[in-house]
């Protein structure tokens, strides 16, 4: 049983000193672009972070979320109060290469971090944040912040820390208001690999940990906009030999690798900005009938490549409890979501049909081409964290590589 040493106090600021109660002083501030100032206790790295504040309603999987490259440029607010409860471990990281990937900028939580209690825990969450150079703030009414985001949209913010509690609030407000909008930002270069990499790790099990690649029957080229490890593992499970290539890879470079199929990964930022260089490559893939499967940003890229438009959402979808309906089976799957942009259904061309829709707000969650072997989904079928209801989509991709036929209904 993992039980951290007493090096970590449950209270980031002691309740008392020798003389009596201490009136706590804020050691961290979260300053939103609209001038909202929230004060709390600094956790994690003693540094300042800037980014767009989004919320996530998942009750488990904070480590996966914080290492999901799609969160690059964002400060994550967890609605679940006890974050850090199971500590962190080496197995649950989702970033392919921690050294090159930016990931989440900061973390906002409600309760003070507890000692980890889980048989797999190897590190206290606070130490982990420090080692990742991620600053955080605890003691925040994250529910109120979530409601604020719900009502006013995802705001840019500065998360500042100060051990002595001294802040120049006005300067922080100015800084927050001057941060660039996520609109038009290409954040892929901050998270993607710059050179190719072969992937061979398969899914995790309770008994055996991570598995390894089998026959490697299919060769899949994964275009890395900020890919999550679990996507690669689910492909590996299905006998796919995966080669990861940078987002900037050209069609010719990909073709030279003789792919059976191409996977367009998830990733951060404004799809339109990333599309400027990747859309031509995707168009060529489609034209050459190469089976293509996209997730999240990859979904938006496919949509852009067929001429559809994407739009920024008001509050985005960030959670592990979202219902999505698959029109091809009429079944509802509970999925993991993490996106701030969506594909505009009305802009879809004739040869792209909507296959999935969010039952929360009716936004588009999946498309398939009627004339080409290509499909994509907005949500995260790889889960991690979240329900694994949508793993079947990887089977669909493998089936498509086998028969090279369109998957639209």
């Amino acid at each position, binding site marked *: 049983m993992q039980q951290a040493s007493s090096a970590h106090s449950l209270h980031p600021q002691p309740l008392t000193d020798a003389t009596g109660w201490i009136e706590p002083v804020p050691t961290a501030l979260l300053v939103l672009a609209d001038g909202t100032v929230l004060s709390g206790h600094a956790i994690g790295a003693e540094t300042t972070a800037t980014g767009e504040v989004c919320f996530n309603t998942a009750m488990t999987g904070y480590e996966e979320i914080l290492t999901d490259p799609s969160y690059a440029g964002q400060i994550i607010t967890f609605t*679940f109060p006890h974050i850090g409860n199971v500590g962190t471990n080496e197995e649950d990281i989702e970033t392919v290469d921690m050294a090159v990937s930016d990931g989440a900028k900061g973390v906002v939580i409600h309760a003070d971090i507890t000692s980890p209690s889980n048989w797999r825990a190897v590190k206290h969450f606070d130490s982990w944040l420090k080692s990742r150079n991620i600053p955080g703030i605890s003691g925040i009414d994250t529910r109120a912040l979530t409601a604020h985001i719900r009502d006013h949209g995802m705001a840019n913010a500065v998360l500042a820390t100060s051990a002595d509690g001294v802040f120049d609030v006005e300067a922080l407000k100015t800084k927050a208001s001057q941060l660039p909008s996520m609109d038009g930002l290409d954040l892929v270069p901050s998270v993607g690999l710059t050179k190719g990499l072969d992937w061979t790790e398969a899914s*995790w099990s309770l008994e055996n940990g991570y598995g390894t690649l089998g026959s490697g029957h299919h060769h899949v080229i994964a275009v890395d906009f900020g890919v999550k490890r679990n996507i690669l593992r689910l492909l590996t499970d299905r006998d796919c030999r995966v080669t990861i290539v940078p987002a900037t890879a050209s069609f010719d470079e990909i073709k030279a690798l003789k792919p059976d199929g191409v996977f367009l990964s998830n990733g951060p930022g404004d799809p339109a900005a990333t599309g400027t260089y990747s859309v031509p490559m995707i168009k060529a893939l489609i034209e050459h009938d190469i089976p293509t499967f996209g997730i999240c940003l990859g979904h938006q890229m496919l949509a852009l490549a067929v001429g559809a438009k994407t739009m920024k959402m008001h509050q985005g979808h960030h959670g592990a409890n979202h219902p999505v309906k698959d029109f091809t089976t009429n079944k509802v799957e509970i999925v993991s979501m993490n996106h701030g942009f969506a594909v505009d259904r009305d802009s879809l061309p004739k040869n792209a049909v909507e296959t999935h829709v969010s039952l929360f707000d009716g936004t588009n969650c999946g498309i398939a081409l009627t004339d080409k072997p290509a499909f994509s989904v907005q949500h995260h079928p790889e889960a991690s964290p979240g329900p694994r209801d949508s793993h079947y989509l990887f089977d669909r991709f493998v089936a498509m590589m086998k028969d090279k036929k369109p998957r639209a209904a």
Partner: protein
Amino acid sequence: MPKRTDISSILIIGAGPIVIGQACEFDYSGTQAVKALKEEGYRVILVNSNPATIMTDPDMAHRTYVEPITPEVVAKIIEKERPDALLPTMGGQTALNCALSLKKMGVLEKYNVEMIGATAEAIDKAEDRELFRNAMTKIGLDTPRSHHIKTLPQALEALTDIGLPAIIRPSFTMGGTGGGIAYNKAEFIEIIERGIDASPTNEVLVEESVLGWKEYEMEVVRDKADNCIIICSIENIDPMGVHTGDSITVAPALTLTDKEYQIMRDASLAVLREIGVETGGSNVQFAVNPENGRMIVIEMNPRVSRSSALASKATGFPIARVAAKLAVGYTLDEIDNDITGGATPASFEPSIDYVVTKIPRFAFEKFQGAEKTLTTSMKSVGEAMAIGSTFQESLQKALRSLETGLAGLDEIEIEGLGLGDDRNAIKAALGTPTPDRILQVAQAFRFGFAIQEVHDSCKIDPWFLEQIKDIIDTESKIREFGIPKTPEALRRLKSMGFSDQRMAMLTGGHEADVSKARRAMDIRPVYKRIDTCAAEFASPTAYMYSTYVAPFNGAPANEAQPSNRKKIAILGGGPNRIGQGIEFDYCCCHACFALGDAGFETIMINCNPETVSTDYDTSDRLYFEPLTVEDVVEILKLEQSNGELLGAIVQFGGQTPLKLAHALEQAGIPILGTSPDMIDLAEDRDRFKRLLDKLGLKQPQNGIAYSVEQSRIVLQELGLPLVVRPSYVLGGRAMEILRDEQAFDRYLLGTLPELVPNDIKARYPNDKTGQINTLLGKNPLLFDRYLTDAIEVDVDCVSDGKDVFIAGIMEHIEEAGIHSGDSACALPPHSLKPAMIAELERQTKELALALNVVGLMNVQYALKEDTIFVLEVNPRASRTVPFVAKVIGKPIAKIASRVMAGQSLASFALIAEPYDHIAVKEAVFPFARFPGVDVVLGPEMRSTGEVIGLDRSFGVAFAKSQLGSGTVVPKKGTVFVSVRDADKERIVPTMKMLSDLGFEIIATVGTLRYLEEHGVKGKAINKVLEGRPHIVDAIKNGGVQLVFNTTEGKQALADSRSLRRTALLHKVPYYTTLSGAIAAAEGIKAYMAGDLEVKALQDYFEGKSAQAS
């Protein structure tokens, strides 16, 4: 997929009386199901023998049968109503078993009734251990390893696979007799040999022990399109070995990583699919090895359950309502999520942004001789749930919600301290699960134990232990430094869940002063909504909990938004306990319904997750909060800040809200209805006596004692026998009949010390008399002359201060001295003369007007030789209100609440309509769960619930009440009779009647001699003390079908105790009072005379105004 149109009528089976393990959570789920199906246009037929339920209100289902839930009776209902479908998943194990029997009897096939929600095959597969184990193996899930063995060598071979410790369960023994846990090989051999011997088939199951593993539960819902969702995960703080109903649990699970959680989620869905639960809710229980995460499936229930009610309340997702809709063909995406006002569909998984803690409440004090150890057999009688932003806040709120006198993690004595080995004494205490273990854990930290040490002893996950230790560490700081003088420092403490009362205890101050200081610093709770979605969507539903959070951009964010309407608060009854249960919740719900209909905004405050009152659509606004002065005043002060709060109703929820009346008044909250002063008057012996004298009413000779010394003086004055009880208690806690001086001493020095609250104990350490006198100073002892062989009568009425409506006069079957809650009773009275009834009505009216009762009042009388004695007056809702309302067809709780809101009683134009039916209410007891406890009835209430028997004659009504309470009513066989001398004369006609009906009679020598002298033939049988074969052997051999046994005197009681226990365990009906025996015989005669007829409640009032509001 739209709803089914090929079925138009649906039968729902309820859960019957409240028993341990099956309480009012099934009224909650059944009520939801009835409403949901009615909404869809189906004709709903309901059977439930429990009159105190909301679901059996005549305006709920189309056809309501308050009849016994036995397959034979339900078959008759099916024959009469011809439902198209049967929904068996809403009424707990009772409904499932009944449905299975109906299927096996061919009734469903004969009348072409389709089982919806769960098939017989699925129920079988889930319930049968072997089938279930095979099903789990098939889908690759682990279950505890086990081997059936018949010999010691086989057992030793099994041991090599199972390992130690090992669980040994002999087959086919009652209550696990002969089994046990072996920690070493010698013990193993010993228990195996004992087990083989104890088992009638000489077969024993050797099972892997998962004691100390972590325990989890998943609440799953599935629709016919195979869409599956998890509503809630629940983690038990108490590890494996304690029944989940007896465990402290939290939601959501707090010590799982996402990978482990998803494995459990997938496994849960796989279990539902394999068992074949096509639609509806189920729960799946898991054990997880904390060392390596190995997960095994413990069991699953293919129906809604106690934990699904908890999950519904914890998340805001109404599982039963949704399950009912799924059963008629809807899919999850076609159903709206009510909480978000339909903005989102029901096909999602609730996300919660708070922590929920549930703590069970026990009643061991009522069962002398019962062991307080918690095991895999459930023993709790109720539970409290609390919601907080963090675990600490949630835990401390839950502790004070329990109403066991705790303000938080109060100090507790640990047995065996001071004997030289304190550390081991503490470890031993922690190693034994008991209701107080959480407090002992806290106490261990006070003694300086480390988290690891405590974990080693109790196996509670270190995560929870660290949180508890932090509370205890903080408590010592509060002791040292007092209450913080600065706002944020104080807010930090409040956000850890410390109540003002606890902080006052820690600093030696008064709660009121702490509250005042806190408010002066403007540290107030805010209210957050339970919205199923962690604020992702705005929720119009005002389902709320309090919390202390940091300011958000200036001030703490409050989501309460009190309206500008005219409003009334209704205070609920808190956790169920013996003496205060579903009947009071029924009254609270009716107040909500009636006042809502009258245009008021209704505000419910309660903390019991099992109830209908804590359903988010029972009231306009629901605060799921502890019923303490601090918590309630904060809510009502906030509600007063906008609109007009007319006041609070404190008289419907039992003693819980009544106790708050004065503090609420002082805080400026008006109390509606009868004034708290009058309620006090009725409780205050001196004032009450003066009132009775003024009215010329009689009461038994009585006395009052404020100290031990005074008690002895009262004894001298009144003489024996005496009835004694502490003032201000419900359910006859510590009420006893004292027949001799030894009993008197035992009461003063044995019973009373148990009642002393911890704070008084702390003030007078080692001074028992001082402690008792301090207690009595505030809550004196009340003594009454005991009226031997008197008839007891309960009267319920409604008054507005001008007029009084006598709603019901109930004649107890058992004589005065048996607690009214434990006594069967008949409505209308079956043996009272009209003149007596008129006089009882007159006296009741006088009392109501004299007390200026506005609302409900209950009076208990004893009738002795035509003299009426007033035993007690309760100017508040009583346990019998729902029973009376159902029998007379008038919603008296609704009327009373409208009267309390200012409407005149005259406006309801109530007339006492004659009716030609008679109802018998019978109590049900949990004795089978408490080995070693005597089943003889007395003045201390021990029943957990009640059933109704409704028919045209007393005999049949009584027989129905017995069937409904689970008693076998024999039509032939042998009656054993052994009665005390005083009863011998009056038992003769009864025995003669049974003999004439064809029953054989066996009796102990004394009784037999008397019977034979008076012309009744029988055979003699030995008492247990007289040598074998004796009566207990005869019962065990199946040679006795009915037991009449009345006894008095300590020795005689002790001598005959094993006889009564044996009858109980072998399900032989037994009656321990003369009047009960006589009624039983009458019931048997009526039962034998012909088939029982069934009749819907609605038909009893055809052409009459069954709905007065």
